[in-house]
């Protein structure tokens, strides 16, 4: 009797483990085929007493029916696997790449920076690249005799127009058309007649942040910059502000981030300084507020501007700014 039980137990547990149609067929041949254990059990009948034979025979038959039914059920549960066409596949061949393009590294960097600022409640604003002197200079507290206005520092167009040399122009356009509180982040192209080399280009990108409200201070500026840079570089980012001069902010500062490569010890990336210069910032100069009709005794504000190219070049390890505008597919494909 125990051999019947053993066969049942082994067969059913093996059936349980069957995972596909092929294994199921192997199982069927093994247990229900002409040389299987059922046949072996039947062969044992002749050695039994006449009294034992019918009982044993019935048991074997029942086992056989049981296994046939179990096979059918398993076959159902596996489903009828669709037939594969042709030859067996070689699973070691390299995968077929789906056809997907890439975003330009400047786009990627810009998107990342904007999304950090958007999460801080800054709204994306844009302005024209071709500007008049009022928006590019006068309103930004850059008087007519300022060296930045001399010929050769800007691309001039007819009719006292020029290509904007900084995205700060968008500050003016937004403040002219809206009242505080406001918080904007302005991305865009800017132009300066620099000779093109590995680290300079006459067209590059900046983002400019501006917040104006009652009661904003340099503390808010510093906190915003820390949140922004920790969004980009991780929570343990360390920044410092050091005094600088810009016509449109006062007090003005340069914002440095502790070099993430050497942790401030000094390396080639940070030119041994331990800090990497990110951009300029400061409190909006009262003269800028006056130019757009805000009362500097009522409102305060802060602004900052950061170059995208340098940031992207460091992030992606791009050694030459000219690669960004050459658009060689072998380059573009690397930013998948």
């Amino acid at each position, binding site marked *: 009797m125990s051999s019947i039980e053993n066969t049942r137990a082994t067969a059913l547990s093996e059936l349980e483990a069957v995972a596909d149609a092929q294994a199921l067929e192997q199982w069927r041949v093994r247990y229900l085929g002409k040389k299987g254990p059922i046949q072996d059990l039947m062969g044992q009948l002749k050695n039994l007493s006449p009294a034992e034979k019918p009982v044993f025979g019935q048991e074997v038959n029942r086992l056989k029916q049981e296994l046939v039914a179990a096979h059918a059920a398993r076959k159902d549960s596996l489903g009828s696997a669709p037939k594969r066409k042709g030859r067996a596949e070689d699973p070691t061949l390299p995968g077929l790449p789906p*056809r*997907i*393009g*890439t*975003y*330009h590294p400047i*786009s990627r960097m810009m998107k990342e920076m904007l999304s950090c600022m*958007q999460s801080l*409640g*800054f*709204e*994306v604003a844009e302005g*024209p*690249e*071709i500007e008049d002197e009022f928006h590019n200079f006068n309103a930004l507290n850059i008087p007519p*005799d300022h*060296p930045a206005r001399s010929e*050769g520092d800007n*691309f*001039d*167009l*007819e*009719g006292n*127009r020029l*290509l904007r040399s900084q995205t700060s122009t968008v500050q003016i356009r937004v403040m002219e058309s809206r009242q505080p*509180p406001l918080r904007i982040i302005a991305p865009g*192209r800017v*132009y300066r*007649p620099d*000779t093109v080399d590995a680290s300079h280009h*006459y*067209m590059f990108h900046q983002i400019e942040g501006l*917040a104006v*409200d009652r*009661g*904003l*201070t*340099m*503390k*808010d500026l*510093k*906190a915003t910059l820390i949140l922004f840079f920790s969004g980009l570089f991780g929570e343990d980012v360390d920044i*410092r502000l*050091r*005094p*600088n001069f810009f016509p449109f902010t*006062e*007090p003005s500062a*340069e914002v440095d981030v502790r070099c993430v490569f050497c942790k401030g010890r000094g390396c080639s990336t940070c030119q041994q300084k331990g800090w990497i210069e990110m951009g300029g910032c400061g*409190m909006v*100069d*009262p003269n800028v507020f006056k130019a757009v009709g805000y009362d500097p005794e009522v409102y*305060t504000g802060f602004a900052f501007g950061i170059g995208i190219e340098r940031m992207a070049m460091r992030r992606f390890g791009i050694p030459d700014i000219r690669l960004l*505008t050459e*658009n*060689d*597919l*072998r380059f*573009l*494909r690397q930013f998948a």
Partner: protein
Amino acid sequence: MKATYNWIREYVPEFRGDVREMCERFTMSGTEVEYFEELEDDFVIEFAVTSNRVDCLGVLGLARELAAATGLPFVPPRVELDESGDAAGAVCAVGIEDLDLCSRYTARVIEGVKVGPSPDWMRERLEAIGLRPVNNIVDATNYALFETNQPFHAFDLDRLQDGAIVVRRARKGETITALNDKDYELDESMLAITDPSGPVAIAGVMGGAATEVGDSTTRILLETAWFEPLSIRATSKKLGLASDSSFRFERGIDWGNIDRAAGRCAQLIVQVAGGRNRRGLVAAQGEPPVGRVIHFRHAQVERITGIDIPLDRCIEILSALDCATVVDDPARISVVPPSWRDDLEREIDLIEEVIRIHGLEALPVESGMRVMTVQEGRQRRIQGIVKDVFVAAGFHETLTTSFLAEEDAKACFFAGTAPLTIANAMRKDENALRQSLLHSLMAVRKTNQDHGNEDVRLVETTVVYLAHPGQIIPQHLPIVGALVDGSLREARGVVERLLVALGIADAEFVAADEDGSAQLDGEAALTLRLSGGAVLGHLGRPRREVVERHDLKSVPVYLELRLDRLGEAADLEPKYRPLSRFPAVVRDLAVVVEEDLPWAEIARLVASLELADLDSVDFFDEYRGKQVGAGKKSLAFSLTYRSRERTLTGDEVDASQARLVSALSDSFGAQIRA
């Protein structure tokens, strides 16, 4: 601006820090150190002095900053000059004709000098900051210049006619040979130092060769003056001639420092070249600049910086910067900045000084900014979707510059105008602003051809510039341009997918309009427009001249769409439509028609029949060959029938198909292909 560690420390003797600490102090108080370099027994430090701090273009100015930043005493050199001899006024005279360009001119006279090399200590310092030693007189004036930030000029008094100097505008046609041995023609816009014979120096820019100090010189006339900055800048620019002196004069030097600096320079000359100073200054001047009083409300410091810096500390900082303070009212004190700080004009300037010296490190990281929510603007959303669709379809986003050669910049798909040109372009092939991405992307295709990259797909979103008459700010038209190595169908497929993504259902491709065919080739060019007529863009193969202009070996497909119009037409909120629970019946059909019958005609006919429960018509193949015969083609498509109410019977569908087949036969003579 270069200076050395020991030189600066000479005037802040109590500073005990090493060179690193000195650099850190400067950088963190606003005078950035670019680098420092070790010398034999000193360090040279390169400073990036900001444009508002002319006073820091001299070592004394830098030392004053270090003293203020560290709270240590500032000890300038003592000026000790023998004033006991004969008066200088006995041997020279000065006069100013154009007081608007020169408000003070002084002369000192040193007699009995012996011209020769200067002592090692002076030569070493000058060499350390990048100057070439010349002789003791020139070196002493240079040394004094870099120490005091006041430019000087030493004339050989015996070569000045009558020792009589007049400062006046040059006369047209007057010329001078400068110290660099080059001849310059002056005009009435330039200020000249003259003697009765004519110009002897270009004021503030460079001295003349004729009155230069030489080996035989024994009597020096030392000029120390103030010249109007804009005039010096204009002259320097016009002549293409700049010097350490013009660099400082054009930024505005300290009027109040002239006489002290003159004494210091005379002292140095006597020290290194011997001789004796004649008593007194010979001077002429106009109106001296007036000092200003700035009201400083203490509460404003916290309002701007966010931290409370006590009034005592504010006064301490301002005093360290040589500002005079009068506390008549603690809430609003009066501050008089020193003569060398013309940049301090307003209360906000003083607040900056206070926080700068107090240290920005003192700002804690805390903020009480209000919560504000933001929404992505529609145009940016559209731009994002457009980029996503193209990238998902295998396009690589490019970044090209806005400049083209003027000829290429004329190309425009949307009623272009004459392109805007750049007055001071750096290159001829980049002298105009583009009105289309066509030439930019074709040029990128060429770059990739040169690099052996095939099967190229490019996309870029940008603005192009259309200058309509009367507009100050030209139209900045947002567009997407894309280029595909492949078939028109592939390019069209991407555009159709984009329309789906933007929820634009009523756009159609029609034969290219005038704008489209101006850039694109022949009959295969298409214009995409809304059923209302507004043009969204164009698609096709660029005209042959364009392909040849860029030297391309194959002709790609180019398309350009207006993002503004796509934005207006887009429906960015897809709505659910109920799904039919009943099975579809699909019938394929292949018909043989005349070669020139466009698919669109067949599609239009199918639509016009309004076949019952027809769900979709999908083209899938076009075939030409022996089997269909010359001048013919076979078009294969499938029709899907599906009802929302019930399962369709084969008979119903067959009836519709029969109607279709006979209509095709009637309209186009189409034959069903078995």
